[in-house]
């Protein structure tokens, strides 16, 4: 399945958000997620199913002003 991850197309085997994050290598990282512009809380990643063409944002802590 092809989804847009942080603005780049990626091919994933799984469809469940929690599984996709593991597959993409985000397993141990502190991140926040949004699908198609909607926040998905960490507790809801299991049970959230992605579809072909979905836009996934995976954000990490960063320096800011």
């Amino acid at each position, binding site marked *: 399945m092809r989804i847009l991850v*942080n603005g780049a197309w990626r091919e994933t085997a799984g469809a469940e958000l929690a599984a996709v994050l593991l597959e993409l290598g985000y397993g141990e990282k502190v991140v926040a997620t949004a699908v198609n512009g909607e*926040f998905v809380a960490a507790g809801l990643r299991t049970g959230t199913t992605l579809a072909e063409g979905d836009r996934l944002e995976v*954000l*990490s802590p960063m*320096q*800011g*002003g």
Partner: protein
Amino acid sequence: MLQLYNASLRSRLLLGTARYPSPAVLTQAVRAAGAEVVTVSLRRESAGERAGQGFWALIRELGVLVLPNTAGCHSVKEAVTTAHMAREVFGTCWIKLEVIGEDDTLQPDVFGLTEAARILCAEGFEVFPYTTEDLVVADRLLSAGCGVLMPWAAPIGSGRGLNNLFGLTALRAHFPGVPLIIDAGLGVPSHAAHALELGFDAVLVNTAVAQARDPVQMAAAFAQAVEAGLAARLAGPIEPRDFAVPSTPVIGTAFHG
């Protein structure tokens, strides 16, 4: 003490964490500033990168309060979603709300800002809106539920200081009980001292410290400036006058009369 929502703070200097030459310099600058609140952000990071996780570990070690921002957001939707993401990652309901309306000046979109503030306040966020000195916008933000306002001094990173002195003075006078933090555009410690002398409660500085030749020394200088400004405010500055007034008593002056 500075009261920001439920937090009582001794320091009047909030520090941004971006654009330092190294993480070590950032750590030293936060300590030299005596800052109790630092701003942080969220960005895209690929799975292989570790910078974000390292940065977050460094901030937690500092033991300061974090104020996540929604920098880079240009719409209400983006800002609200980013606030939700920040609350989860940073474990705080504080949000420095930025909705940018114009790219050359990074001027806030005050229409989007007030709408996003209303949504987030209703959801229980404690919102720190990055705004202009506009009195009507300030009133709308307070009505939306904001307990703090962060008016700009000048465009972000410009270092120009208090650009609209009249407007900022009017803002302070109109909302005497509201914590007002000057955010953005300060260049040197005298700008910060001036803000505190005018009665602003605190300042947030990033570029002026981070991009200084010696950020640690500049952080210490800003800390001294806000202390001096607050002390001067409490001491009651004299009013400016148009004519000279002799400071040395004239009675008994030799050679006269």
